[in-house]
Each structure stands twice: as C-alpha cells, then as structure tokens.
C-alpha cells in the first residue's frame, strides 16, 4: 500500500443527462419538468420526451424517454418507433460546454479548484472543502445545495479516493444522492463493478473472454503480468481497477471575465439608441481585452428584446475588433432582425462575448506603418457601416450546374465558403466562356418560331419549332444563331427554392451580335445571362 499516498481524495459531482438539460435550456423548453425527481411522478404533468442525436444515433435522452425504452446508441428511427412523441435535437458539443460554464462558475464560488471532466461532470479535490465544511458529507451537501439553487435537482455527488472511483461512486449514488466511499475502501467498492467501466472496449472484451468480468478480478491479477501482456495503458487501467487512481486534480484557471453586458431600463426601441447606449461598454470591452494582452477576432452578440425574443450571432473579423467595429456588428444584427422602420420590440439586454481571441503580439502594427491591405479594410468597413454587413461583398467561384450555384458572394470579413466543390466535373454545367452579365433576377422573355408561336420543349428534348426570335418586354430580337436545348434535371425530388423543375438552356445570338443564355421551363422562357 505504498502507492496509497499518491491517490487524491476527490469529490465528483455529476448532473445526469446534461446534454438534455442544455438543449432544453437553450431552446427555452421548460427544464423544470425534466429536472423533477423521477420518484415524484405526476402522470398528468407533461414530461419532455427528448433525445439528442449524434450521427443518426441517440446520444442522450431524458428520463421520461428512457422509461419509454429509448436508449443511448439507438438509431433515430428505432427510437422514434419506441416513442413516437420523441422530440429530437442535434447534439452540439459547444452548447453543452457553454451551458455548463455557469454551473462551474457557481461551484467555484463555494469551493475552489474545480476540474471539468466533461460537461455535466466536475472533480474537486476534497481536502480543502472537507476541512472547511467539517466533513466529506457536509461538503457534498453544500455542493448539492448550490446545484439545487441553479435548478439542477437531480445531481449526484460521490466522494472517494481518486477521480475514477469518485465518478463511479457518484454514478451509483441513488438516494440521498451522495455516496461516500471511505478512505482506503476504493478497491472494495470497485470490485463488483463490471470491467467495461474502464472505458476501454477492446480490453474489456478481451478480459471477458479470459473470464475476468469484474474490476475486482482484474485488480487481483499481478501488476507485472498485466504490464507484460497489456503494456503501459493496461497497467494504468489495472491501477484504476484497484482503486489506485494516481491522476491529480488540475483545477482550471477561471477564465477572465471579458464579456460586456448592458441592460437597458427602460428598453430602447431605436437601433441608434441601442448602439449609442453600448458605446461606452464597447470601449471597456476592447480595453479589457487589450489589457489581457489579447485581441479579439470573433465575437458573439446576444440581444434580448422586451418581448422575450433572443437573437444570437457570431461575427468574424478579418483582423481584430475595435470598439467601433463592435458597435457596427450590434447595429447590423439589429438591422438584420428588424424591418426598416424599427425593431419589432424594444431591446432590453445586449451582451458581447469574445469568441476567439489571439495574442496581441500577432496583430501589432508594423514599425513602418500598416500594410496597404489595412487601409483597404478600413475603407471597406466604413462602407459596410453605411450599407450594412452584406453591402460589401467578395466573390468565390464554386461548383454546380446553374450560374447561381457557381458564383458565391460572401460579405467582406466573413470566411469564404462554397457549398459545392469546384473540382468536381459537374456534367451539364455551361461550356466556357462564362457569361459576363449574370442577371440578379432572371427576366421573362418569349421565344417564338417563324410562325409566331411560342417554342416549347417536350420531355424528350424535342422543340416544337425552330426558334426564330425572342422578345424582352416590347423589343423584338430576331435570332441569327442558337444552340440547345441543354437540359438540367437537378434535384427533382425537392420542390424547394424553385428546384425540381426540369429546365432547358439555350444559347442564342441576336441580330445585333449579342449572345444570351435563355432558360426554358415548361411554357415559360427566361433570360438568365448575357454574353456582352
């Protein structure tokens, strides 16, 4: 028992089904029903049947859903067939962490040095809190009290030697939600537990085939033999099984408070008022970041309105934010969510959070003034503040068959992203040269044959007549050459966004030597682009 000295006595608290709680809170669904003690079931009360899905499989589910037979790892369709009322949400790892952040912060208020094991689970070194509160049990009660005050009423606490043992003590705690494994009692506590809890599926399978089913049996093996057979990793797991968890608690450094929050009382109903009201805070926000030797390259802006609407958006910056940039982003976000006349309801709360920061040294201006690009960026940002974020664009050419797919316009400062890969061959896309004028909205035209009838294309691609002329509005343009039809039958399964209609493209040249790209859909003709 010489190794005993290395084991840190640990308090672990665990909030079961944290992904569910996070999702319910983020979506504004009542978390209270889900947090109710499962023992006090009221058949009339609506319990949320919620599952969080990752890669088509259930990642977590609410207790009510679990009673209906939904399990982790179940396929979505199977889960829905077991529980038809199941609400399904995608799993967002960062939402989990983000929503757990206030919990950790609150815990740090009552006991110092919490280590986040994963969202929903935290380890704390027990020596300090136990001494301060009197005993392990008292400390655990305090912890539960704190969590209760945050609305997490089903949390469990385990106290044991080492984080591994404490975690499983917390998981095995049922009522009264605390389980304390006495000092030195880890091995006895772990002995009856199955080997799969070690979290090494391959090893667990192998051990089971060797006839070793519990942690106690595994721990009973000679340490030297385990090292010889399974290497260092195996030896580590062997130590865990024996309750000799040598991992230390590494308390996290509480993040510096860099957020900036302004509440408006009374709520403001004009965008410029809100922007002005945030001005001083924006200055402080940027100063705070600069004081931490950082610059901010992306921020998240959260805006709450009086009517209870919340708008959240992340804004990127190609260089780094200044106070004026922050104000601009708030204004654009409000403009985006509001009509021209004003906001739908007054704004009562604005919060700006630095989402990604960088060392200030990487953004220092050069000794001989700034680069030319810097000037360009400033001027374009000024234009953006006149016209809105989407007023200044840069372009990326992407893949796709239609002209609209191929040209992607990105607001200045945003990361260019193309939906479709340009390197794919895209059979059916237009041959080069590309049209120099691509109309923003296509214009209706009429294409007629020599006898004056509108030309149509049947399903086999045959024309009802030879195109002879086309008219735009009132002007009549005789055709000197034409080619087509080149059919596109893309995404026929989807009727959204005007897709799902078979279209035929034609290149035509009018008598003035101007070439056009015409599109035929059923009986209607459109001019989509011009080669001028």
């Amino acid at each position, binding site marked *: 028992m010489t190794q005993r000295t290395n084991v840190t006595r640990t308090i672990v608290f665990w909030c079961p089904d944290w992904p569910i709680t996070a999702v319910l809170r983020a979506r504004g669904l009542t978390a209270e029903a889900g947090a109710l003690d499962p023992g006090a079931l009221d058949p009339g009360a609506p319990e949320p049947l919620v599952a969080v899905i990752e890669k088509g499989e259930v990642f977590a589910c609410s207790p009510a859903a679990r009673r209906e037979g939904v399990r982790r790892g179940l396929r979505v369709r199977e889960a829905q067939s077991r529980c038809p009322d199941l609400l399904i949400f995608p799993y967002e790892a960062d939402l989990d962490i983000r929503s757990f952040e206030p919990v950790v912060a609150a815990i740090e208020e009552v006991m110092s040095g919490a280590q986040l094991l994963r969202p929903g689970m935290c380890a704390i070194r027990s020596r300090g809190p136990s001494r301060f509160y009197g005993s392990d049990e008292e400390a655990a009660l305090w912890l539960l009290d704190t969590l209760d005050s945050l609305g997490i009423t089903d949390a469990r606490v385990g106290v044991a030697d080492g984080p591994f043992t404490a975690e499983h003590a917390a998981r095995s705690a049922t009522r009264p939600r605390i389980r304390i494994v006495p000092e030195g009692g880890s091995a006895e506590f772990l002995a009856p537990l199955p080997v799969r809890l070690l979290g090494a599926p391959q090893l667990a399978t192998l051990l089971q085939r060797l006839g070793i089913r519990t942690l106690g049996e595994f721990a009973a093996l000679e340490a030297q033999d385990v090292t010889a057979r399974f290497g260092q990793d195996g030896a580590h797991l062997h130590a865990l099984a024996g309750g000799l968890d040598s991992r230390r608690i590494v308390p996290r450094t509480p993040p510096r408070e860099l957020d900036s929050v302004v509440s408006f009382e009374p709520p403001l109903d004009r965008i410029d008022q809100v922007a002005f009201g945030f001005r001083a805070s924006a200055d402080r926000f940027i100063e705070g970041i600069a004081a931490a030797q950082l610059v901010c390259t992306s921020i998240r802006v959260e805006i709450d309105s009086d009517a209870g609407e919340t708008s959240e958006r992340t804004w990127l910056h190609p260089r780094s934010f200044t106070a004026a940039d922050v104000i601009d982003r708030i204004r654009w976000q409000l403009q985006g969510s509001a009509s021209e006349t004003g906001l739908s309801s007054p704004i009562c709360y604005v919060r700006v959070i630095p989402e990604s920061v960088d060392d200030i040294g990487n953004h220092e201006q050069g000794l001989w003034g700034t680069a030319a690009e810097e000037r360009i960026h400033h001027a374009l940002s000024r234009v953006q503040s006149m*016209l809105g974020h989407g007023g*200044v*664009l840069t372009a990326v050419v992407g893949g796709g068959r239609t002209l609209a797919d191929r*040209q992607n316009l990105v607001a200045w400062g945003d990361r260019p992203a193309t939906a479709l890969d340009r390197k794919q061959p895209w059979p059916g896309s237009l*041959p080069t040269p590309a049209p120099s004028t691509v109309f923003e909205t296509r214009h209706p035209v009429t294409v007629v044959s020599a006898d004056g009838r509108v030309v149509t294309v049947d399903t086999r691609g045959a024309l009802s007549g030879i195109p002879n002329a086309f008219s*735009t509005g009132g002007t009549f343009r005789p055709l000197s050459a034409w080619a087509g039809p080149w059919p596109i039958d893309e995404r026929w399964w989807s009727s959204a966004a005007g897709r799902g209609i078979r279209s035929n493209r034609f*290149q035509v040249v009018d008598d*003035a030597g101007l070439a056009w790209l015409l599109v035929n859909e059923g009986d209607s003709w459109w001019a989509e*682009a011009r080669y001028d």
Partner: protein
Amino acid sequence: MFDDIGVPASVVLDDPFEEGEYESAPRSAPASAPVRAPAETVRDLQARIRQMQGTKLDTRSLPTHPAIASLLPGGGLKQGAAYSVERSVTLLMALLAGPSAAGSWCGVIGVPEFGVEAAAHYGIDLERLVLVPHPGDQWLAVTAAIADVLTVVVTRPPRQASDSSVARLAARLRQRGSTLIVLGSWPQTDAMLSISHSTWSGIGEGHGRLAARETTVTVTTRAGARPRSARLWLPDRAEQFSRAERSSRAPRFADEQTRELAG
C-alpha cells in the same frame, strides 16, 4: 433598362487604316515619321497639348492588358483618369484584367449582374475584387470611399450625376491616383470605349456553342479626335482577350465538339 441594352449595329467602322498600326503614344519619337498628313500632325500636336495640360505631372500608367492598351490614349490606363465603357461588361473586364493580374485591387460598385465566374476566367483575381452591388442613394459616397483605397473603381451611376459631384469625384480620383471606369455615360472621361460590332463564332442554327467573339472596339477620346478602333477577340477560343488578325475569319467549329455538346 433591360430593353435598351443592345449593341448598335449601325456604327460599323470598317476603315482599313484603323487596322494594325495605331498612332503611338506621343512620347515615341515623332522625328522618325515619314511625310504625314496634316490632320495627323494636328492630332499629334493635340495629343502633346493634352499631355502638357495633364491633370498631374507624373501621371502614371497602370499595367493594362496588351490587347487593349494601344487603343487607349497614352498607351494604357492612367491613374487618376476616368474611362467610360458602353454596355459591354466583357470590355469592362478586359480593362480590369491588366491591373488586377498585376496585383491591384478592383472595386465594382452598382453592377449587381457582374459575372464573377467570367471575371475569374479572364484573369481578374477574385481575392482582390470587391463588389458593392447595391449602393442605393449613397452611390457617390461609396464610390468616393472606395476610390480612396482601391486602384481601379468601376461604377454605374444610378441616375444622371450632378456636375458638382462629378467634379468632386474627379478631384478625389486625381488626388488619390485611382482610376475610375464608368459603365454608362460620364461627363468627363479620358476615353469612351464601346463595341460597335460583334460576331460570335462556334454557334450555328441549332448546333455548336458560343466559343469566341470577334468585336470591333471603338475608343473615343474627349478631345474630339478621330475615334480609334480595332478588332479584338473578346474573348477568343482560349478565353483570352487578343487582337484579331486582319484577315482572320472564325474557323469552323470542329464537328466532334459539336457532337459532344449536342449529346
């Protein structure tokens, strides 16, 4: 607006003299010239006067696409000057291609239908291309702000701009040394470019595809000199801009290509 965008077929300049050698920039030695027509001498002198009255002493040229450079007064796009292009966006791209390929930033204001893919094919670097499709009422302010920093600014005035605002913008361009290209008419331009004739090749009656276009580009300078024109491929079969050889005719489109496209 949509209706009147046709190239007038009437102004076909087919003067054989306009082919090949163009009057060179005034700085090339005029002494070596043989006996010259009086009109030509007058033109040369006018060009010299223009140069001496230059808005700025050290007017620098921008790198310009060779196909179009010799058509322009001074042998290329000049900093601080204004050019106007009538209707043709391809011609506009031909003007932008040179500076953009040489690393200059270009801005396109008020032209929402600017074909980005074509621009990329013609050698305009999209990473240094800024688009402001809908400047709205703040058109002049936006143009001025962008002209401050970008080398070439393309704009299309939504309405007839007032003389005072044109003068202010011109002064700003001169001061900043950026080049303005106006799509449409503009009161004070150094040169006005238009396509007076265009023929597409590669396309027939129901077969082929648009492959190349032979155009006659006419450049009118503001001093009232005789307009220069030249035949250019805008674009040629390799999606490049080039001068058309005098007697070149569009070669027939290869049959197998036709079949490949029809199928």
